[in-house]
């Protein structure tokens, strides 16, 4: 990756217009996350809660009413470096899934389940999910 540093960045990647900070939306995610932490996995309440929040953000993301960040129209050749971590993640996930997602061959979600049983971790999970979702809606 060392040789990439010397090559100037294309102008389209530096001229990214940022929208105004969206503090109210992120602040709204805090009580929503704290509430979500109360709903246990595999429960009807958790399913309904995630579906309502997700559907709301999905609709917001597909509507053209919200302002979006302007970004690059094409990517520099260095994008291939992303294939390394993403490819590794997909390979490990695919192998463990194909082998049954058991204790000896755990998928990522199986490993996350015990962590997400904890209220605080579950609330943090909700907060991270909602915040990234909002970031995607604004892109």
């Amino acid at each position: 990756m060392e040789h990439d540093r010397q090559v100037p960045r294309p102008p389209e990647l530096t001229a990214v217009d940022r929208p105004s900070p969206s503090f109210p939306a992120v602040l709204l995610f805090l009580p929503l996350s704290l509430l979500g932490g109360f709903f246990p996995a595999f429960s009807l309440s958790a399913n309904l809660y995630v579906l309502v929040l997700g559907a709301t953000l999905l609709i917001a993301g597909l509507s053209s009413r919200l302002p979006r960040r302007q970004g690059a129209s094409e990517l520099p050749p260095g994008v291939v470096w992303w294939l390394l971590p993403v490819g590794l993640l997909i390979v490990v996930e695919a192998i463990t899934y194909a082998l049954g997602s058991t204790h000896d061959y755990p998928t990522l979600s199986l490993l996350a389940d015990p962590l997400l049983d904890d209220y605080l971790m579950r609330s943090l999970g909700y907060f991270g999910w909602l915040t990234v979702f909002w970031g995607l809606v604004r892109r």
Partner: protein
Amino acid sequence: MSVTRLLAISGFVLAALAMLAVEIAARRPNSRVPRLGEVTGVVMRYEAAGLPVGRLAVLGFWFWLGWHFLAR
């Protein structure tokens, strides 16, 4: 802990560390490696037959991921 479990966990940790390393490399001045957000942005702008296929795919994937980890 079985060897296979250890290998699987190591694989996930390695993937996460590699992701972090590429993102750090992308944030260096004059880097030709785009940030993850920039890659996602380009994917989201992909359209086919006037439909926002890329946008729908990325938002739909994130929706499913939340449901998979937090609800199911």
